[in-house]
């Protein structure tokens, strides 16, 4: 009987105690934990690694990024620029000897390790702070950075002038 009453009293008092705790939290003025995301954004760390971006004008097509990538998400195809073409230089003065006509990054494969950005000799491949890039089609996650068209559509075509001569 004593235990029964003790239990009752314990249940009664702890209920009031816990109710006091919750009501204190209810009227707590500062709810600083929630960020109203689409309108307010959390500040990113200084070196946040988000979507990759390649400044194609500076890219020399060396392919070191593609080799560094652990998930093989970068696809580069290049060809030699012709001797007759005017020389092109990257913004730091490096001569661009290759024409990069395919520079695709598949962001669905990217693991955001940033290993590709370190070997880049012209620092043209960087990780931006852009993180809102959801798309409806998976294929839209493959970013095509190359702007140049290949001069020779296929290696065979390249051979042709030599064969004629």
């Amino acid at each position, binding site marked *: 009987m004593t235990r029964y009453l003790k239990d009752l009293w314990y249940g009664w008092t702890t209920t009031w105690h816990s*109710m006091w705790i919750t009501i204190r939290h209810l009227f707590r003025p500062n709810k600083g934990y929630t960020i109203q995301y689409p309108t307010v954004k959390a500040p990113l760390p200084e070196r946040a690694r988000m979507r990759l971006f390649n400044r194609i004008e500076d890219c020399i097509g060396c392919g070191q990024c593609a080799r560094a990538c652990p998930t093989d998400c970068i696809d580069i195809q290049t060809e030699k620029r012709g001797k007759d073409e005017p020389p092109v230089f990257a913004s730091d003065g490096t001569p661009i000897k290759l024409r990069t006509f395919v520079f695709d990054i598949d962001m669905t494969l990217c693991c955001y390790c940033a290993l590709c950005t370190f070997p880049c000799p012209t620092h043209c491949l960087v990780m931006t702070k852009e993180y809102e890039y959801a798309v409806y089609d998976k294929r839209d996650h493959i970013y095509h950075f190359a702007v140049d068209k290949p001069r020779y559509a296929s290696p065979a075509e390249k051979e042709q002038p030599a064969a004629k001569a």
Partner: protein
Amino acid sequence: MESIRDLLELIPYTTALPVWVQAILPPAVSAVILFLFVAVLAMFAIWLERKVAAHMQDRLGPMYVGGWHGWAQSIADTIKLLLKEDIVPAAADKALFKAAPAIVFIPSFAAFVVLPFGISSIVADLNIGVLYLFAVASLTVVGILMAGWASNNKYSLFGGMRSAAQIVSYEIPAALSVMPVIIIVGSLSMQQIVRAQTGGIQNWFVFRNPFTFLAFFLYFICSLAEVNRTPFDIPEAESELVAGYHTEYSGMRFAFFFLAEYSNMFLVAGIATTLFLGGWSQVLPAQWVPKQLIPGPILFFLKALSLVFVQIWLRWTLPRLRVDQLMYLCWKVMLPLALVLVLGAGLLAVW
């Protein structure tokens, strides 16, 4: 209903209508008004619950829909539920499955008939009001059991069975905890009970004598169990039974279960208000403020809503009871206490 009849008489040509239309019109109008009231109230209660829950957990809750603190969130949710596909499981008992939401909702709606919102705002002041309330409110369990059984799903059936066991058990202390009040008033009519408490806060039955004071708390706890709210929400325990008896429901039928739950919440709060907190009568003692300043329906609404708030408050405070703990509380704690209260109130009334 009398006031609605009076209002309808103000509209010209209603007396020219056939007699049966004249007979049906006042109840129909009051039913529509009550339904709108219940629906809007349920929507508001859902929004309130989400906001209170969020703030008790130091979150913010709905914040976008409608602009100001997500006030239109429940409206958006209702529209979504209305537009959703109405799925009836292939293995379900079709007829029972479809009837269950209505059978859950109708009793809680019907019980609103005797809630005295004001001196004249009551649909029907039955002379057996309290008895009617308990009789009608206990019909809900049929619908819940029906939903659980018809879904043909283990979890639903468990939820239905648990709910039936719980509601049937808690009917007894709930009905007994009302007895002290009825002993004092000597009437089952809701309006009579409120009239016995007019004249300020000191006349309310909560503060009348120690037995009714305890009876208020007892009734409140039992009413929590009857509407399947935490800490007695084992019928729809999310973490064990998915959603209990309404696991298989979707769209509008699911919305009806929710409507029933929230209107039930307001209903039991309204009953507690009527029986113990003076219904529509004024708060300040009559010696200080002889005239009622705030209109009765608003007072009733505020009192009931504050009890709804306490229900929500408790839900986000206490953990769920185990089934055996639930039955222990009912049969070994509530029932003896209720009997003692009835005895004490009876002795006090005779003495």
